[in-house]
Structure formats: structure tokens, C-alpha cells
């Protein structure tokens, strides 16, 4: 025990989180090896629950970052409700409390034939089963002119971290009376209500600090998640600030110019003070490199085990997976991770995996004291993940202040709980 303690202690204290956390409880892990790529909602939960369901497993988690900044609640950071530290999740408890070996490194290759994962740092990891939860990457140039370099001028802020900080700074620097453009992509994409929560909170910020400003949502769609509820809130609070332009009214952004700062639809050209361009997405690059994605850019999987239909012994969860009715949310990723962990254990034992039972509950803040939600429970039907009929759905329209306030409080409670459930 003393020996293990010292090793872990040194790794933790000496490295400000950047080194591997390979000591801890892992000494007693003599069972089959599972490697998890990505320590976001999907990967962290999978690693933790694998050890919870079977402590003898040898579980290794690899993330490219020393800590994970969550997208959930990053919209509150943009408007100064919370700071970056509030959304930073560290991996140390996965090691010290659950015995997961943690490495900070970028996975660059997966070889399904030899069951080996390779990293940018030159390491190789052998696995018996692999879980891939890399989140999303972007289709650069799907919007003409919007490439990675352009995102440093017109941030997407659709992965939390430096992009969040950049967008926040731009909002702070813009003049009173300036124009903010938010350009959400078509379906499917990460967090369907996310752009509209962002629009709401930014409108609240503008109303308070820069009341002459306008916010234009230039949408590639004609409908969006919880749209009636959002519009109800906007009418009440931000009627003179937010304008939503659907695709049918030529809202779709087709071109940007990062040099002169312009944003174009087929019919109009804008020069916003702040342009938040959210481009179309694919599964995280490593899933594509490893041949786990189909031509949609996302990864087809078995609906009960999340094992790739394109590669044996590799499971894909979270935003990267094609998961039927489940939206690309942190809650979905985390719920899928538990199902996947249980399935992997059954498969190791040569048992039939259990049928999927999963939940998604997503809160959006229309204002700091005004929350709305969508919920669903999922089971497999006709080979697809489907929401269970006559249940779930969105918050009621026309609810009173107390109801909206309660859901705003629950949104915060949700965030605290899911972070505990996933990383601690």
C-alpha cells in the first residue's frame, strides 16, 4: 500500500495533472484489458463504470488533454456566470477512487487486427476491448471560407476550452450597438438545443451590458430542439434583441470571410462584431482514421453493446456514435457508457449482453433563473434505439416563474451530479 501510495502521490503532485496516473489501485487489476479513448462524458463514465461493475478489469483511459473542459455550462462561462475552472474536469479521481490508469496523450492510430492503440507520444497500448469516445470534429470548408484558421477569428466554441475564452473575450470587446451572429448547423450535430441556449444567455448579457446590440441566429434549419419553448422565452425577455432566421427565409450561412469579417447567406451579407459559426460535424477524427465511421461521418454501432458494426472488439459511444433517437448530449454519452460497460463485461464472460436501457435529460437556460428541459427514456426496438412512446418530451408551455426557476436550479443540480457521476 505504501509503495502504491507514493507512486500515485508523486504522479499527481509532481505533474500538475499532465503525467500519467498509472499507479493507484490498478495493481489489483489482473482481468481483461479495456482501453478507453477520450475522457469526456462518454469515456470517463465508461472507465468508472467498468471498474464499478468489475473491479478486476484492467482499465486504461487516454485523453489528449490533461483535463476536460465540459461543453455543458460553457455557455454560462461566455456571459460571466461562471469561470473556466467551473467547467474543468480532472481525471485524478478516476485513478485514486476507481483504479483507472490515466494517460495524457493523443491516440493517433488503432489497429483492430493486432488490437493495439498508438499515441503521438510514441506509446502503444494493447487491449482486449476498446471504447472510443472522441466526441466530434468539424467539417472545415463545408461553409466556404470556414476552416480551422478562420475559427480563430470567428470561433465555433463547440468544443470547450480556448474557443470558449475567445468567444467570451469577443463579446466583452464588442461595442454597444454591435451585431452578434450565431450560425447553427443542420442536423445531426452535438447538442441540438445548445446554439439556442447560447443565443438566450448572450441576449441576456447584451440586454444588461450592451442594450443597443442585436443578435441574429442565421440557421441552416427550419425547426430546432425545444423551439416553441425558446421562442416563448425570447418573446418575453429578448424580443428586441434576438431575431431567428430559418433556412426557408435564407438563414443558412454559405460563406464567411475571416479577413474582412463578413458572413453571407445566399441573399445577404453581414458584418457582425462577433460571429459564432458552428459548422457541420463528424465523429472525432480518430474514429474516422480508424475506419469506424460510415459515409455520414458518424459511427454505426450495435444498439445494445455499442460495438462497431465495422470493427470487432471496438465500441463507439457518445457524439461519435449513430445512436438512433438518442441526441448527441453529455447525458446520452454517459448513459450509453454504462450500457456499454455492462455489455463488455457480459461479452468477456461469454454471456449475452443485456438489452439497452438508457435516459437523456437535457436542461437549457433561457436565462439564469429560467430553465427548460427535454427528457426521454430509450430501449431498442426493431434493431434501433428508440424513445419509449407516451413518455418523455419537453417542459410545458406557459409555465409560471416558479416552474421555470425550479428547472433552472435543477439544471445546476444536474450539472453537479453528472460531473460527479462521470469523473468522481
Amino acid at each position, binding site marked *: 500500500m505504501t509503495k502504491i501510495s507514493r507512486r500515485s502521490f508523486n504522479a499527481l503532485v509532481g505533474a500538475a495533472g499532465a503525467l500519467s496516473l498509472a499507479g*493507484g489501485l490498478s495493481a489489483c487489476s489482473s482481468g481483461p484489458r479495456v482501453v478507453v479513448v477520450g475522457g469526456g462524458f462518454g469515456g470517463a463514465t465508461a472507465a468508472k463504470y467498468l471498474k*464499478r461493475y468489475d473491479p478486476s478489469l484492467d482499465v486504461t483511459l487516454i485523453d489528449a488533454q490533461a483535463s476536460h473542459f465540459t461543453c455543458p455550462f460553457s455557455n454560462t462561462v461566455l456571459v460571466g456566470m461562471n469561470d473556466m475552472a467551473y467547467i474543468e474536469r480532472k481525471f485524478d479521481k478516476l485513478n485514486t477512487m476507481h483504479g483507472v490508469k490515466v494517460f495524457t496523450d493523443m491516440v493517433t492510430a488503432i489497429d483492430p487486427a493486432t488490437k493495439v492503440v498508438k499515441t503521438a507520444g510514441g506509446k502503444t497500448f494493447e487491449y482486449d476491448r476498446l471504447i472510443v469516445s472522441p466526441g466530434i470534429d468539424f467539417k472545415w470548408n463545408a461553409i466556404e471560407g470556414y476552416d480551422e484558421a478562420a475559427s480563430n477569428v470567428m470561433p465555433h466554441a463547440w468544443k470547450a476550452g480556448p474557443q470558449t475564452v475567445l468567444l467570451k473575450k469577443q463579446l466583452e470587446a464588442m461595442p454597444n450597438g454591435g451585431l452578434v451572429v450565431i450560425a447553427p448547423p443542420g442536423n445531426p450535430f452535438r447538442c441540438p438545443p445548445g446554439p439556442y441556449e447560447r443565443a438566450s444567455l448572450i441576449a441576456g448579457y447584451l440586454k444588461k451590458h450592451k442594450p443597443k446590440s442585436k443578435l441574429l441566429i442565421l440557421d441552416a434549419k427550419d425547426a430546432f430542439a425545444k423551439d416553441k419553448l425558446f421562442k416563448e422565452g425570447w418573446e418575453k425577455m429578448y424580443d428586441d434583441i434576438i431575431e431567428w432566421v430559418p433556412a426557408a427565409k435564407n438563414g443558412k450561412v454559405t460563406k464567411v470571410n475571416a479577413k474582412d469579417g463578413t458572413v453571407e447567406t445566399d441573399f445577404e451579407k453581414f458584418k457582425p462584431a462577433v460571429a459564432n459559426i458552428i459548422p457541420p460535424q463528424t465523429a472525432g477524427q480518430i474514429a474516422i482514421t480508424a475506419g469506424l465511421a460510415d459515409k455520414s461521418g458518424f459511427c454505426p454501432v450495435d444498439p445494445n453493446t455499442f460495438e462497431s458494426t465495422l470493427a470487432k472488439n471496438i465500441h463507439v459511444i457518445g457524439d461519435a456514435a449513430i445512436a438512433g433517437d438518442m441526441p448527441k448530449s453529455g447525458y446520452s454519452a454517459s448513459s450509453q457508457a454504462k450500457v456499454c460497460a455492462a455489455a463488455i463485461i457480459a461479452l468477456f464472460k461469454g454471456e449475452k449482453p443485456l438489452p439497452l436501457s438508457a435516459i437523456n435529460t437535457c436542461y437549457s437556460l433561457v436565462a439564469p433563473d429560467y430553465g427548460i428541459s427535454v*427528457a*426521454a427514456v430509450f430501449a431498442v426496438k426493431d434493431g434501433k434505439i428508440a424513445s419509449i412512446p407516451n413518455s418523455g418530451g419537453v417542459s410545458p408551455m406557459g409555465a409560471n416563474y416558479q416552474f421555470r426557476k425550479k428547472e433552472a436550479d*435543477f439544471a445546476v443540480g444536474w450539472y453537479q451530479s453528472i460531473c*460527479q457521476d462521470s469523473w468522481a
Partner: protein
Amino acid sequence: MRGFPVTPVLRLAFGLALAPLALVGTAHAADQVAVMADACSGCHGTDGHSVGGMPAFSGKKADELKKVLHDFKSGAREATVMDRIAKAYSVEQLDAIADYFASRKK
């Protein structure tokens, strides 16, 4: 460890010293009920140990939990979101979920 106001370093030491115990405390076979019930933990915390403003299940009796869940399902109890969620489960499933959380360590 919950509830101990310890410094990070101390907490780390505790974490390591107590970890095997903690593991026994939270470990659970991945059976059908566990998989169904653990989906709830996204909002209510692992084993129902909510750390924030969401209702916690720890310390609740099975019968109490069952009644609440039944009432959410029937609509007898006012809710923001739990009515929508409880409707997806049969009464037997809700009872199994309640028994599961009642059996978890406080």
C-alpha cells in the same frame, strides 16, 4: 469520505487508503436492474448520492421511493420532469429501481 473537509493532499491519502473499501461500497454486478437504475445517476449522482440541488436517494426507504415514483407515473405528484420520465417504466420496473437505490450504501 463524503463530508470530510480535508485538504487535497489529505484527501488523496484518504482516497488511497480507503479506496479498496470504497470500491466494495460502490461495486455492483452489472445486472439488468443495475443498468436500468444507473441511468438515473446522471441527474441524481452515483448510487443516488446527489451532490447538488437534485434530490438524493441516500437514506430513503424503498417504500418511500416506490410511492414517489408511482405518484410521478400516475401524475398524482407534481413534477417538473420526473412525470415525463416515470411514465416510461412499468410499475415493476419502478419498484426494482427503488429497491436498488434503497439497497445502496448511504
